[in-house]
């Protein structure tokens, strides 16, 4: 896929063209990520196995929160073009950023 323009315009084109794929990704991703994070994220892998498994079962919210937290703490250091692109993707795909 080729896209051009400002960061927002490229993001909007991306979201418009890949809307269906992104919807599948969002739907399936967090369930997979919860299990993967429970076993692989450095901090969680230091927890007892029983607790890791519990996090794996109920970890969708944790996966989302970890990603949200990472977004918040990295935003200050990240050029604005990235945020513009994500806003464009959200507009084009109809999926909230």
């Amino acid at each position, binding site marked *: *896929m*080729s*896209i*051009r*323009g*400002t*960061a927002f*315009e*490229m993001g909007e084109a*991306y979201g418009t063209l*890949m809307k269906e*794929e*992104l919807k*599948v*990704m*969002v739907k*399936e*991703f967090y369930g*997979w*990520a919860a299990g*993967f*994070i429970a076993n*692989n*994220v*450095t901090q969680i892998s230091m927890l007892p196995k029983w607790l890791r498994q519990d996090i794996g079962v109920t970890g969708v919210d944790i996966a989302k929160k*970890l*990603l949200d937290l*990472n*977004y918040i*703490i*990295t935003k*200050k*250091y*990240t*050029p604005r*073009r*990235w945020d513009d*692109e*994500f806003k464009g*993707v959200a507009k084009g795909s109809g999926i909230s950023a």
Partner: protein
Amino acid sequence: MVPEILKASCSIGGWWGPATASGQLIQLRALDWEEHAPISKFPMITVYHPSEAGSVPFANIAWAGFFGSLTGYSSAKIGVSERLRGSPADNMTRFGKPWTYALRDVLQFSKTLDDALNNLNTTDRTCSVFLGIGSSVNNTYRLIEYDEKTLAVYDDTNWHFGDTHPKMPGMIWKAYHDDKTCFKNHFIPQYGKITPELIWRYVAPRSETGDSQVIVMDFATNHIYAMYPNPVTQTVGYNRPAVKIDLTPRFNEKW
């Protein structure tokens, strides 16, 4: 954002000058990560043509919904790739620019190897990873230890050479199975005759590296050879056929 908290293992390397048949740079990125993750359903190359000043067209070689770069190649003939490093943990922080964003910005704004290194040097770095940066302008490749506090740059003279990686001009790699001789057993006998085909057809499958993605970049032609896992048959990437993609027409598109 996901790689910022997960990170991926891999093999990366560069071969150039006296090591290759063409004399031009060849770069490998073999991603060993999670080939059955949902993201593997939608491998995708996005060619960006940014209007922002200082930008060049570049290809992010990834998956649908993956906006940072684990692997990429630009019209300025800069290649980027990453490998798990894991330590030292005290040189890592979450407070900085995600490293996949830093890598993609290298593609967007670098025209030479020096540009790329300056870009990384001035970035608020986060995780500890190995990076591979190749440049056709300089016809060379660098392996980098990247973390919050340091940016250590290695070439074919100062790398951590050893039994599994002898010191020879024009080649440097960090293999997934770093303690084994798979890479050495291919590259030493083929020294001076190394081609992209040698790497994707023989080295990656025999070394069993690149379950999630194998990308071989041929800087002489602007071609990449891409291998991705099959989510239906669950065949790993390094056992799939390679698709040759010529990026020149994509970079030269008229709008």
